[in-house]
């Protein structure tokens, strides 16, 4: 900001033009710090007075802003309604902003117009310490090492380092080990679905009858468990794995599902797939009826529900695992078993 351009052109140019045979230096020479260019407030006392008044006025505005903030705080209480909360927030924020901004602008204006803007020059020194200082420091370490006697006492040296090395473990082991719970990563393999467990609507928990589903309809499904069980932590963790998306397709449209030879995992065009994306685990929730495509809103992996939930686009690699379903005696949809493979994102020992 203080880089003032010297207004008078250099005289070198004429000199260079007139005698071309003179030998020239390799580099130009530094012209030095440009001379100080006085500002309007430096030259004109009236302008300086004006700037001073502006600064004073701004500090005054800040005082008013602070008072306004307090008034807003005490008089405009959020009454709990959207409008009330919004009004209180806008008044508080704006008044506070005025009180703060005015001080900031005043300070900067003051510094730019009224404080001296002359450049000062300070010497720099090399960052490194001198050789003498280094020598003294190195000698200090050497003397200290000798004073400690470690060089002569090899066993002591070994004992010190062994003890210090080992003492990290009593701290680190509990710190790491206890934090991971029971470390039973085998839980990734299973969900709470069991043979005969009814499929229920999420979040109401009402069991689903096959007859209730029209062709093209889609249902977000949870396992049918008692309502009080659904108000626990364990439920949230189980639900994170167990959620299912169910679609009723026209049986002719159903090209394939994941049933192995000799088994039927679908029921009359109704297919149920894990809702947990095989990419990184978002709930796959956007179903497009026309194309039978299921889209994950997080990273846009797209699965074809009419074709074994195969990946048709996006970063997912594997199809969504299918939940084998059938109906019970009362016509309710039930699971034949748990999923036959781990749901959700891939992990190292998934196939082990």
């Amino acid at each position: 900001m203080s880089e003032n351009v010297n207004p008078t052109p250099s005289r070198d140019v004429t000199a260079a033009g007139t005698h071309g045979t003179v030998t020239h230096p390799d580099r130009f020479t530094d012209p030095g710090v440009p001379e100080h260019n006085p500002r309007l407030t430096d030259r004109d006392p009236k302008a300086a007075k004006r700037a001073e008044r502006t600064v004073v006025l701004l500090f005054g505005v800040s005082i008013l802003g602070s008072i306004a903030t307090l008034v807003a705080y005490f008089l405009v209480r959020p009454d709990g309604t959207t409008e009330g909360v919004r009004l209180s927030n806008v008044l508080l924020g704006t008044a506070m902003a005025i009180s703060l901004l005015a001080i900031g602008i005043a300070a900067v204006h003051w510094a730019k117009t009224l404080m001296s803007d002359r450049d000062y020059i300070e010497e720099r020194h090399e960052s490194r310490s001198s050789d003498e200082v280094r020598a003294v420091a190195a000698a200090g370490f050497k003397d200290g090492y000798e004073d400690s006697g470690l060089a002569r006492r090899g066993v002591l040296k070994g004992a010190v380092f062994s003890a210090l090395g080992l003492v990290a473990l009593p701290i680190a082991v509990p710190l790491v080990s206890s934090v991971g719970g029971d470390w039973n990563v085998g839980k990734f393999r299973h969900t709470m679905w069991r043979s005969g467990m009814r499929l229920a609507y999420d979040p109401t928990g009402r069991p689903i009858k096959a007859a209730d589903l029209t062709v093209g309809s889609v249902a977000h499904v949870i396992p049918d468990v008692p309502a009080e069980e659904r108000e626990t932590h364990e439920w949230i963790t189980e639900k994170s794995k167990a959620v299912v998306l169910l679609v009723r397709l026209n049986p002719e449209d159903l090209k394939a599902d994941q049933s192995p030879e000799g088994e039927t995992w679908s029921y009359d065009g109704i297919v149920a797939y894990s809702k947990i994306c095989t990419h990184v685990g978002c709930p796959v929730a956007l179903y497009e009826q026309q194309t039978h495509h299921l889209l994950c809103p997080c990273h846009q992996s797209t699965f074809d529900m009419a074709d074994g939930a195969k990946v048709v686009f996006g970063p997912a690699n594997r199809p969504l695992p299918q939940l084998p379903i059938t109906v019970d005696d009362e016509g309710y949809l039930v699971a034949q078993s748990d999923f036959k493979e781990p749901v959700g994102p891939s992990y190292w020992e998934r196939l082990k």
Partner: protein
Amino acid sequence: MSTTINSPAEPTTPAGKAADFLDQRTKIGVLTKQLVRKVFPDHWSFMLGEIALFSFVVLLLTGFFLTMFFEPSMELTEYHGEHPAQLHGQLMSVAFASTVEMSWEVRGGLLMRQMHHWAALVFLASMVVHMMRVFFTGAFRKPRELNWLVGTSLLILGLGAGFTGYSLPDDVLSGNGLRITDGVVKSIPVIGSYMSYFIFGGEFPGEHIIPRLFTLHILLIPALILALIGVHLFLMVLNKHTQYPGGGRTDKNVVGVPAVPVFATKMVGNFFIIFGVLALMGGTMAINNVWNYGPYDPSLVSAGAQPDWYMLFLEGSLRLMPGQGTEWVIAGYTLSLNVLIPAVVIPGMLFTFLFVYPFLEAKVTGDHREHHVLDRPRNRPVRTALGVAFLTAFIILAVAGSNDLLATHFVMSLNAITWALRILFFVGPVLAFWITKRICLGLQRKDRELVLHGHETGRIVRFANGEYIEVHRPVDEQERWLRVNYEAYRPLEIAPATDARGVRRKGYRSDRRWQRISRFFYEDRVEPVTPAELAAAHAHGEHDEIEAQRGTPELVSGSASGEREH
């Protein structure tokens, strides 16, 4: 200034007495003597780091307020508040309920929350922009490599602070963010599943994650950030600030304004302006209204979900990676490259580049000197181009993180956008590199042109012999110095493969490799104008100066024929 050290006068004023009290116990006079009139170069771009610092201060102030009301518990509770109506009677975690209550029932609570969130976004943005300034001007060179490492670590900690804070309200949006994190962690070979257990204390989401993130967010990460800010500023004072090139600015001095009063006043003013702007944002711009998303439910997700801006590049990276054929099973173990590459390898490459760049550049430049005068970005074409290339990749990934919004806003095919961005991710940075490098070289040539021939004035004159010329105004010596005062580094020169007796030299191959990289950096270069070149240019373009010097109309032919042409 006029007090003498030899005759210690008894202090009389209260301030003097306090100073005396303090100094008798701490020798603080020595420190103050050095700092009070310490010279700081003045430039708007030196303020960017200050913005980061001050938004961090705002984060501490507003964050303290929030901790007074936030309860980091995943206990389930029924929401009893009347407002907002849609939450009444819903089952949710205490963390979510307390977030809503502090926004709706605590006076100033919503303002503090919104200011805190905005300050976090500004904190990270200003860190990134500050880092760009440091990178493009070469402020990371010796002796400031260490401070560059500290700064990069601060950026990573800032990302960690943002991520842990974002997840605390336990709403649907941040819960899905955590779930994505879990999926990414699980993709890490061998230890992924166990790391997931380590983070969540069991299976996702469990009941520990919010209290754990809270402790990281309000204790560990801010403590580390504060400590590193201390180191960052200490090194800045120790090394003294860099300065832009110009007359009188050398590697042996620092030219600028004294700390007291000018620099300090501007700095305090800047603090209040940042604070004020954040208050205005918090007061007028709604952000993260978690009650609209609802409490976390593992089966819910909203379309068009976006992370905060600093996570967009990771999100975009995950979105761009094609899934087909990128999950490998090796001896029965699953290697999910479709997650590992975008979410671990790509950010790993970015931060590795940032950490090693100062050392890489010093090595290929063969440069061991201290640098305190900054580079003009054009004078280091390859560095500038590399920086722009990385930024381009970053921006393309961030755009990819919004590909669904692009598709819905511009009614385009999501798949087409994704494919275009996949290709652009590889092509864009290369193009950006090439274009930037060309622009830099062009600007350097322009500098030469200006130094040799001066600025065009637009004034055309005709000589008596009928020759037309355009008058050029020569650059003054300050401007000339700015445009010639740089070094055009050359590629490394290495000793030959064999010595005088024809014996193969050890280390030749490694030298060769470094030379190749060095060529990439410095093969194309534009040398600054030398005084001899300037003299030569003037020898054949003599009319210009005569005209410009005298500025008299004697060489201009009469007004009848020699008017300006357009």
